[in-house]
């Protein structure tokens, strides 16, 4: 069911950041579309973001005592830290209060929703999947998220898909099923405990090796896909560089064109040869002759006969034969017995059909077919030779072109390096498909072999422990679950790629950004790596598509959204963000205002809140803040909810003082 979550506000007291309270509700009594929280460096932006994450995920229950104490205002503080966060869940208020007891180094929670207050972190059922330590990072974001989503070494994009679509439940259930059987097998005692231990150890050893090799193999698969994509991108770059200088590279371009056309001809010749090979009579004169001889032999012995078995069987039931003689029971029995020597009418039809096919396919000259095949082999061999010659020429001219143009040279060198790297990776990958099954487990690399050995070892163990039936059932369930996981992630990923690209095209029409695939991480089409701005756009676009896809609406709460961006990119991102979400709350420093807010956000929406939070000890701003209506002052912090104050807040001087 669709769920909408919006952040209403929060209050923080007793933490490293100044005590403060932020209310995100506008005059329509709804959260602003955009809330800008300006906090100078050193005020505790990151602390506030971390506190929001911990309060809304229950994550503080897993923190160590020293981690909790690190949030205190000072080391000797025994005043507890209290963070209260209010959210709207489908327009109903839920409140989470997180308390840090610094003396004991412990965290506790209280949750209020609908029926009243509960001790502990008890998020409403409908949003449990979002309010947990894994998922919270995907809507309370920091600058590293885009990198994580697009980094080859991380599977963050897959993780968020798993979490949001809950497909990881399939893996978790499979693991539970496996645990169940393992526990069951472990609890069984037999008359030969030593033998059983040996069997269990063997299962564990194979499992461990299989898991390790699967990880290695998956990472190698990822690498191969990345290298292939990089190689394609580099080849494109190489070709663009060559085509830029058409006059100088005319010979090369002609040679490339010839190679391309010869390759197409080679494909056509191969296809003709395949078609010829698909007819047995073409493969060998002996084949064609034997097929013809079968037909001739059948003709010779009159097989099938003109009469079918059914004729004689029916005759037995007649009082007299067609010649007029009487058919008595003895004669009828004799006819019936001999009838079995005749083929049934269906068999007769089939044999006749075979003979007709032989006539049509082989004809009277069985040896002629192979000659046609030979001629096609020669054609193809000639074509392969021509392709090789043309390829050599292209390589030679490419080398010459690269000596003149450094861009061509650079791309060429990269292509050669990538090709080499790809070859090595593909060679390394082969060992995981090996059929070699002899020797100790530690020497086996073939995944299929190991899976078979594991199945065998588990079967033996199950037999010894009398748990064979349970084992077979768990295997079936695991296989169904794993297949379901693979199929569903494949379908979801491919649909998401398509939808993300449609959205990116709509939101960022000038950027020509496309996601190529999601295999663990997001991969951009035709680019090895995007710029910081591109990565951020794709990351926002991907997450937004993902949330929309599941009909859930979540706020984006972002720390320093524009810090790493160039000015033109800031403008673009600023204009894009309000289209991606129904609520955008962001922590900024004053230097991020330029272009991001004035030329970006403000151009697309007026529903913007401007909050500035700074430490009370900075007297210059305290005086100014005091003159603004609605300024709140706490023990160590000042909170000003005012656009003019926000825009005039001067970070540089602030930092010098702070």
């Amino acid at each position: 069911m669709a769920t909408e979550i919006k952040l209403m506000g929060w209050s923080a007291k007793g933490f490293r950041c100044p005590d403060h309270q932020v209310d995100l509700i506008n005059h329509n009594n709804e959260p602003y579309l955009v809330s800008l929280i300006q906090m100078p460096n050193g005020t505790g932006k990151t602390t506030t973001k971390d506190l929001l994450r911990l309060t809304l995920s229950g994550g503080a229950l897993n923190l160590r005592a020293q981690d909790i104490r690190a949030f205190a205002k000072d080391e000797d503080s025994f005043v507890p830290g209290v963070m209260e966060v209010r959210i709207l869940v489908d327009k109903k208020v839920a409140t989470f209060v997180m308390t840090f007891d610094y003396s004991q180094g412990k965290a506790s929670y209280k949750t209020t929703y609908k029926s009243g207050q509960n001790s502990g972190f008890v998020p409403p059922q409908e949003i449990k999947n979002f309010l947990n330590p894994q998922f919270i990072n995907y809507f309370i974001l920091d600058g590293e998220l885009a990198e994580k989503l697009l980094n080859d070494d991380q599977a963050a994009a897959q993780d968020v898909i798993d979490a949001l679509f809950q497909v990881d439940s399939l893996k978790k259930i499979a693991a539970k099923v496996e645990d169940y059987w393992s526990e069951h097998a472990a609890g069984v005692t037999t008359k030969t405990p030593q033998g059983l231990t040996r069997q269990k150890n063997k299962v564990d050893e194979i499992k461990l090796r299989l898991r390790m090799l699967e990880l290695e193999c998956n990472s190698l698969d990822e690498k191969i896909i990345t290298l292939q994509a990089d190689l394609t991108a580099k080849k494109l770059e190489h070709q663009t560089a060559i085509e830029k200088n058409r006059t100088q590279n005319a010979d090369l371009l002609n040679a490339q064109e010839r190679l391309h056309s010869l390759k197409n001809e080679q494909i056509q010749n191969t296809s003709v040869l395949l078609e010829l090979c698909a007819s047995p009579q073409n493969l060998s004169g002996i084949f064609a002759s034997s097929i013809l001889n079968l037909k001739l032999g059948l003709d010779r012995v009159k097989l099938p006969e003109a009469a079918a078995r059914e004729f004689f069987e029916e005759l037995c039931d007649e009082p007299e034969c067609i010649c007029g003689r009487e058919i008595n029971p003895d004669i009828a029995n004799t006819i019936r017995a001999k009838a079995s020597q005749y083929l049934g009418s269906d068999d007769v039809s089939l044999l006749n059909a075979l003979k007709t096919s032989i006539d049509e396919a082989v004809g009277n000259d069985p040896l002629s077919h192979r000659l046609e095949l030979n001629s096609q082999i020669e054609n193809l061999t000639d074509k392969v030779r021509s392709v090789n010659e043309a390829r050599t020429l292209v390589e030679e001219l490419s080398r010459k072109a690269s000596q003149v143009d450094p861009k061509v040279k650079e791309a060429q060198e990269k292509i050669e390096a990538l090709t080499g790297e790809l070859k090595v990776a593909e060679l390394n990958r082969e060992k995981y498909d090996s059929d070699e099954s002899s020797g100790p487990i530690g020497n086996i690399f073939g995944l299929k072999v190991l899976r078979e050995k594991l199945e065998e070892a588990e079967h033996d163990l199950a037999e010894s422990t009398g748990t064979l039936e349970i084992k077979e059932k768990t295997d079936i369930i695991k296989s169904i679950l794993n297949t379901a996981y693979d199929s569903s992630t494949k379908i979801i990923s491919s649909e998401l790629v398509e939808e993300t690209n449609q959205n990116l095209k709509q939101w960022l029409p000038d950027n020509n950004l496309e996601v190529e695939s999601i295999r663990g991480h997001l991969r951009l089409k035709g680019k090895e790596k995007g710029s910081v701005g591109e990565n951020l756009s794709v990351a926002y676009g991907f997450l937004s598509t993902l949330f929309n896809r599941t009909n859930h609406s979540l706020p984006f709460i972002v720390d320093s959204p524009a810090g790493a961006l160039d000015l033109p990119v800031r403008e673009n991102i600023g204009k894009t963000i309000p289209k991606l979400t129904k609520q955008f709350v962001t922590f900024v420093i004053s230097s991020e205002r330029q272009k991001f807010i004035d030329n970006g956000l403000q151009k697309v929406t007026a529903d913007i809140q401007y909050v500035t939070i700074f430490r009370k000890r900075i007297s210059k701003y305290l005086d100014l803040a005091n003159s603004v209506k609605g300024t709140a002052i706490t023990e160590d912090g000042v909170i000003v909810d005012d656009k003019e104050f926000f825009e005039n807040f001067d970070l540089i001087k602030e930092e010098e003082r702070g």
Partner: protein
Amino acid sequence: MADFRILKDAKPWFKDIYSKEEGLTIDFEVYYFCLMAGLASGKKRGDLTTTETSELVQHFPGRYKEKGKIIVSLFLARYLASLGVTLTDKKTAHNQISKLISPTSPNYLSDEGMKELNKYAAAGYDEIIGWFEERPRTLESFLRTFALKIDSQVQPINI
């Protein structure tokens, strides 16, 4: 009705020329080449287990639909020759043929006939891997070598 069954080991060997735009497109093509090599050599593997083979289809698919009867004819010729049955002995030929064919089957073979056909295909895979120094990387190189090898290695079929 029995299925065409392919050795599980066979598909990985063909993987570089399989399922590519310009390569073999269906599992049956791998089976076909193995079968032809088996029928050429006249060798058969022993009884096959379901764990060492994978089920394919019951009918002749794709481009082989029109060629099914010729493939079955070649099989009959090779099988009868292997038994020493000549087509001058009508009774024996009739008995053997009626055991192997089934007009109601989409592949024209009885269960017994299909079992024997699959044994030739399995042995054919052993033949093919002996013909190549390494796994084929392109369809054109595979086809050229296969076509040359099969013609030079085929054993007489005296029927």
